Each structure stands twice: as C-alpha cells, then as structure tokens.
C-alpha cells in the first residue's frame, strides 16, 4: 500500500532528522479563510470512529447531526420531536411498529435512502462483533440478545424484529411495549447508512457520507473538518451559511484567545474565567447561557450493605438536604448550572415530563432537618463520607464545596472529603465493577428529550446506566406501565409516578441541571444552542 509506505517513511525521516531539525516552511493554507459565509467553530477531537452507532459523545455527535438526518428530529427550541425522513411511524399495540419513509431522500453520494439503509445500519450497530458503543440502544428490538449475547459469540447476524417490507417501508417488533419509542429515533445511533459504509468501510470513516444538511469536504483527524451544505438534502433544516469549519482545540483557553482575536466565530467550550468575563457584559451580548439536557447527581453504592439499610435511606435524604445548591451554583459555577428540583431536565418542558419541585424538601437546603435525619439514621456509615470523582475533569471545586456544605451542617470538618480518582476510565471502571464504597459523582446527558431516557436507563434494575444499582420492583413495574401506556401524555405521567419513588429511596441526589454556554464573534449572527447544548449550526448566519 503506497500510502502506508509513505507514512512509514515520514516517521523514519522524522526520527532520523530529529537532531538536525530544519526550519519551518509554511505548510498548506486554507483553515484561516473566512470568505463565502463560512463559520469557524470550536470542536473537540471525537473519542470514537465517526460511525452513527459508535458515537456517544458530544464532539462526534455534533458532526453526526450535521452529516446525517434520521427518522425523527427535535426542535432546537422546544425539544418537540417531529418526523424528518419518516413519513409515519405507527403501531396499534405499542410494540409492533411500521415505519414509512418520505420519498426522494438521497445520501450525498447520490444513492437513495431506503428501508434497507435503516435495517442494515441498525443490524450493524447491534451486532457485538462490530464493537459499536451504542449497541445497547437496539436492546428493545426483538432478537437483540442473539446478536449481542451477554457472553459468548452472537448466534445471529441480524435481529429478527427488523423486516424490510419494500423500499420505503420496514417493520420493527420490540421485545416490550414502548409507547414513546418513535420519539427516541432522533438519536444518532438510529441514522441510516449508505451501501458504501459496508463496502468501503475505511474510506467511510475518513469521510462519512450521510443524508443530512451538510456534507464533509475535508477532514484531517485531530485537526479540523470542513463541512459544506449538502445539495441533495431533502429535509427542513437547510443551512443558512456557506459551511462550517470545525477546528479542534487543545484547550478552552486557546479557543477563547482565538475568539477574542477574531480567528474563531463560535466557541461553546468556555472556561470558568471566560464565562465570568462574558457574564460581566462587554461582549456586545454575544454570549448565551441556556439549560441543556444534562443533570448532575451524586449516586450511592446501594450494593454496599452499609448503604442499603432503611436507616441509610434517612442518611441519604439528610445528605441531600445538607447541600446548599443555590450558593454552589452561584459561586462555583457562575450560574451556568441551575439547582435541580427533580431528576430530569427543564429542556423537556412540562409536556416532556419535567416537573419543577417534584423533589420537594429533599432538594431544599435545610441544615436543621438534614442534621436531624443523618443522626436519626445512625450517622454517616463508616463515620466519614467520601465523594469520588475523576480528577481529569473539572470536578474538584464543586465536590469540595459540596463537602464543605455538608461539613458545616454537621459541624464537623472531616465529615465529608472529596476522593479524586486519576482518570475517567478508572473512575468508570470502579463504578461499573461495583467497587465504590461511598457516594460518587454521576452525570446524565440525555440521548433524546424524553423523561423515559432520564428514568429507564438510570434507575430501573436492568438499566444500562444504573450506577447505584438501585433495585425497586415497584419502580420497574411503573416504568413498564408507562412504556405500555396508550399515549405519550399518560406515559409521561406514569413516569412521574415512578420518579416520585426516588424522593424516598434516594438512589441518587439531584444536584443541578447543567447549562450550555456559547460565545460568538461579531462576524456571525443567530447563534443558539439545542437541548443537547450543541450549537444549531444550520441556523447560523454570517454577516
């Protein structure tokens, strides 16, 4: 392979030339151009290869949403789902669904988007040998356990629940009733894939091809991606600009310096210092601080005997009341968080299942009652509370402040201490292998704007992200009832009935909802953030 040889030579040349390093010749240009209505935007290096079912973090997700369009899309302001590529998604029993596609949709390589594009993509995403990190999103489809068995090799290559009827229709059989299932389909794991994904996988990863508002013009890994409007796009989110240059930054401060010096247009990774300056005002109002579908919590290891007793529940309630959320939000986060009063997020809206104040007294700072409850429950198990967090993220400040708040309430400077764990990987590893002995920080960023996403994966017994290993049969039953409800409104209210159980059981303490922040240059207008705190790139105009 000639290209591999070239890389190899480059490395050899580099190593041998190390000592006689030559000067600097100016390399290829193009990234700094700013003509033709192109928006230069901050970007971070995606953690996984750019495949729809393999992208689960915000940087890769931003690109997926620009390059792909799926069956359903969410309104950037209200989070309300609406059909994108789907003509209709119907079911008579909330379990067997028929999906019909709009006609005439094409991928940017000219091939049509058909029922097969979805069925093949979903089967690929679910098959465990393809190592897609979003595989569990297909777990509700019949036959998932055959393509991704908990142990051993898959016994089938495709899921029995997926059937292509004709070019524009396919049917999906779920393994359980799931009323709000169509509303989940805006998540990037459910995007369709063109044939070239399967025939020339390596080329696809270098330059993904989708059916979305933008297509990729060039992509240099870990450096930048240039996106231009896709002329074949048939949806409603037509780009209002000439393209987006996503520029990878090593550090939020470097991006902010570029924003200040005019080399960057949209910056949604602001550091605390930058936010303090921007919130102070002189930026000409080019700054936005708006809620996102992210809630931060402190979870308890309920698998540890000392944390699972009836008395421990009182202690957990007491700890929650001992946290002065409002003060921490103001002083540590410069109001880029909002004190939580339930276990979902305000971006869902009332119709989507957000209910302010559902948490009640539990989320209200009450030093007297907090102390009383903790003492009534026999004090903190083990005598000292440690709150674990990953030290490679920006968590130390608020964990210390939270501990400080608890310590003040208990009148003991050593009642609570932070416990930093080196890396996120190690931290997650200790959580998933049930090695935690005390509470630890947890965060949940929604995959789709539905109360179901805040409840089922996080708090049901078999939930894929039930880090506290909360196990309450009544809760599970209520979730099943909610999923089988005949309509979305009933489903939402059933989920809220389940959510109320969390007030007494407290598997996790709601802390605050995270906001998204973005600042922009005078060169662009109409910048806003969607409920996932990603800029709505298509709407940005260049002046």
């Amino acid at each position, binding site marked *: 392979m000639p290209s591999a040889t070239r890389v190899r030579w480059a490395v050899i040349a580099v190593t041998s030339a190390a000592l006689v390093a030559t000067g600097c010749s100016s390399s290829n240009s193009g990234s700094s151009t700013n003509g033709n209505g192109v928006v230069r935007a901050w970007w971070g290096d995606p953690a996984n290869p750019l495949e729809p079912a393999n992208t689960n973090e915000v940087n890769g997700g931003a690109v997926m949403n620009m390059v792909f369009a799926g069956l359903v899309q969410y309104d950037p302001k209200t989070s309300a789902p609406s059909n994108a590529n789907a003509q209709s998604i119907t079911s008579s029993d909330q379990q067997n669904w028929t999906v019909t596609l709009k006609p005439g949709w094409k991928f940017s390589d000219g091939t049509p988007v058909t029922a097969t594009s979805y069925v093949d993509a979903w089967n690929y995403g679910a098959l465990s040998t393809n190592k897609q990190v979003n595989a569990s999103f297909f777990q509700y489809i019949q036959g998932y356990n055959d393509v991704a068995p908990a142990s051993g090799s898959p016994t089938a290559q495709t899921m029995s629940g997926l059937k292509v009827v004709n070019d524009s229709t396919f049917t999906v059989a779920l393994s359980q009733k799931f009323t709000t299932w169509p509303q989940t389909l805006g998540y990037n794991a459910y995007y369709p894939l063109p044939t070239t994904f399967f025939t020339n996988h390596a080329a696809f990863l270098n330059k993904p091809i989708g059916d979305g508002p933008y297509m990729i013009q060039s992509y240099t890994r870990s450096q930048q991606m240039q996106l231009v409007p896709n002329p074949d796009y048939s949806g409603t989110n037509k780009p209002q600009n000439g393209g987006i240059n996503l520029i990878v930054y090593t550090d939020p401060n470097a991006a902010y310096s570029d924003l200040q010096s005019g080399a960057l247009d949209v910056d949604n990774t602001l550091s605390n210092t930058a936010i303090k300056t921007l919130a102070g005002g002189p930026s000409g109002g080019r700054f936005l601080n708006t809620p996102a579908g992210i809630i931060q919590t402190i979870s308890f290891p309920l698998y540890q005997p000392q944390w699972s007793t009836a008395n421990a529940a009182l202690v957990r309630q007491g700890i929650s009341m001992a946290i002065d959320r409002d003060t921490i939000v103001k002083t540590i986060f410069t109001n880029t968080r909002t004190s939580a009063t339930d276990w979902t997020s305000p971006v869902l809206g009332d119709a989507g299942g957000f209910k302010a104040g559902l948490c009640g007294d539990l989320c209200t700072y009450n030093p007297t009652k907090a102390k009383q409850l903790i003492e009534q429950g026999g004090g903190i198990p083990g005598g000292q509370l440690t709150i674990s967090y990953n030290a490679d993220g920006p968590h130390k400040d608020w964990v210390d402040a939270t501990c400080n708040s608890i310590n003040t309430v208990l009148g003991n400077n050593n009642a609570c201490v932070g416990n930093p764990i080196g890396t996120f*990987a190690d931290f997650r590893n200790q959580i998933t292998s049930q090695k935690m002995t005390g509470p630890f920080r947890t965060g949940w960023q929604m995959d789709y704007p539905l109360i179901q996403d805040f409840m089922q994966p996080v708090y049901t017994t078999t939930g894929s992200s039930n880090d506290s290993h909360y196990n309450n049969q009544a809760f599970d039953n209520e979730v099943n009832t909610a999923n089988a409800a005949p309509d979305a409104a009933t489903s939402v209210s059933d989920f809220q009935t389940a959510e109320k159980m969390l007030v007494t059981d407290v598997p996790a303490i709601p802390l605050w909802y995270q906001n998204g922040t973005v600042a922009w240059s005078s060169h662009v207008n109409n910048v806003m953030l969607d409920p996932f705190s990603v800029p709505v790139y298509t709407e940005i105009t260049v002046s």
Partner: protein
Amino acid sequence: MGRYVLRRLLQMIPVFIGTTFLIFVMVHALGDPVAALFGDRAPDPAVAAQIRAQYNLNDPLWLQYIKYMGKLFRWDFGTTFSGQTVTSQLAAAYPVTLKLTAVAFTIEVIFGIGLGLLSGLRRGRTADHSVLILTLVVISIPTFVTGYVLQYLVGVKWGILPATVGFDVTLQSLILPGIVLASVSLAYVARLTRTTVAENSRADYVRTATAKGLPKRRVVINHLLRNSLIPVVTFLGTDLGALMGGALVTERIFNIHGVGYTLYQGIVRQSTNTVVGFVTILVIIFLLANLLVDLLYAVLDPRIRYA
C-alpha cells in the same frame, strides 16, 4: 571512534527495552480503558468483551508487552480507540513539534549563549546585572503564566503575532510559543555560559592568545568561547529531548497539535498504543541526542578522545 559509537548504540537496546516496558506498565496501572469509551453508560458486556479482545486486554501484562513489541519491530504501532493508526498520529505530531523545538532551540542557543557571553565578559557591570536579574525573573515564573500573559498581550491585545498556531503551522505563529518554550532553558544557558566564560577569561591560554596580539574577536570566539562551551553543550543536548517532551504546556496554550498534546490525549484516554509509541520515539531521540553530545566534546576539545 567507530567502536565507541557502536558500543554506545548497543547500549541503547537495554535502555530502550527497559523504558518502553516501564511506560507500558505505567499506562496499564491506570486501569481498564474500555469503561471510558461508553461514557456515563455501563458498557454493553458483549461489546466490551469484543473490544478487550481486539486490544489484547485479556492477556497477562507481559504477554501484551511481547505482542506489542513484536508488532513494533515490524513498524506497526497499532491503533487508537478512535480507529486512527499511531503511525499517522506520529507523522502528524512529530513534524509540528520538531518545528517548534527547532524555533525554541534556535532562540535558546542564540540568545542564551549571546547573553551569557555578554554578561561573562562584563562581569560586575550593568549589562551583567541586567542579565542576571532578567534570567532570575524568567526562571521564577512558571511557563504557563508566561505563556498566557504573552498570548494575551502579543496575540489578543496588540495583535502583533497570531494568538494560536492551530492547523496552519507557520514560522510566524511559532515565534511566540517558541519564546515561551525556550525561556526557562535560555536562562539556564545564559547563566551557565556566564560562569564558564568568566572563569576561563582568566585562564593562561586566553592571556597567551591576547599577548600574541590576536584580535579580541578571535580570542573570544576561537579560544575563550570554544573552551567554555563544553558544559553548555551537555546541557543543550539533554535539553533537546526535554524540549520535545516538555512542550505539553506550551502546546496546550497555543493550540499546537504536537507530541506533547497527543501524548496528553493518549494518557487521558488511556490509549496505550499512543503513549508507548510516542515515548518510544522520544526515547530514541533522547538517546541519540546524548550520543551526539558526547561526540561533540571531542570536536570542542581535541584532548578528549574515544577508543
């Protein structure tokens, strides 16, 4: 001389194996990287098992190391979790860092030795005091402070030079990070040069050369400086490797996608392949730089010979 070089090259083999093994063990001590790939979600057991198998994570550590080294000798550095080959990462990051190092090293040599010479020849006078105070200030301020302050003043406020480097690596954009990266070493070089120059300026051979009636310029450059450079060259040689590895802070501040930053990403994401691959190359550079320094002694001082 040839035998000496050969012996030194052979000595590199155990050093090389030792360092790579240590790095390998250290990265693994951070724990299982697979959990982090799934974010806040618990890994799907089926998928996690497949990923572990792909990266040999189920094998005992020594076997993983042997498998890794086996591939390395076929110049296969493996891939990262994001599906990128480490060779392509190396090819992208090293040229950038080499450019930065070259700029920093040039600044360090020219200004470090220049200031040191000036200060050493004018001991006790204003020039000497200014250099001493200046270098003291530079040494005592942490690099990231110098970096952010210079970036803000020169790049953002006055707009003289680009605030960051980014995708388009130009000589102009590297000047600011080059100064920041060079600053501390520059101060050491200046002080080191000053001391040896001051000491040697009273030496017999300098007095002889002056007495012979040689022009001052020749005395200083050919006799005084050449003999004073031996400790400075030792420092510069080891510093070359340190500059490349230590560029982490500078690279982050100025958005340079070089060795320091890629290495940092590798550690954060626990990509063993990236970390060991980059460190392997760094070790080779370090070893070669040291060899070159030792050989340069003989050039500077002909009395030093190698058998």
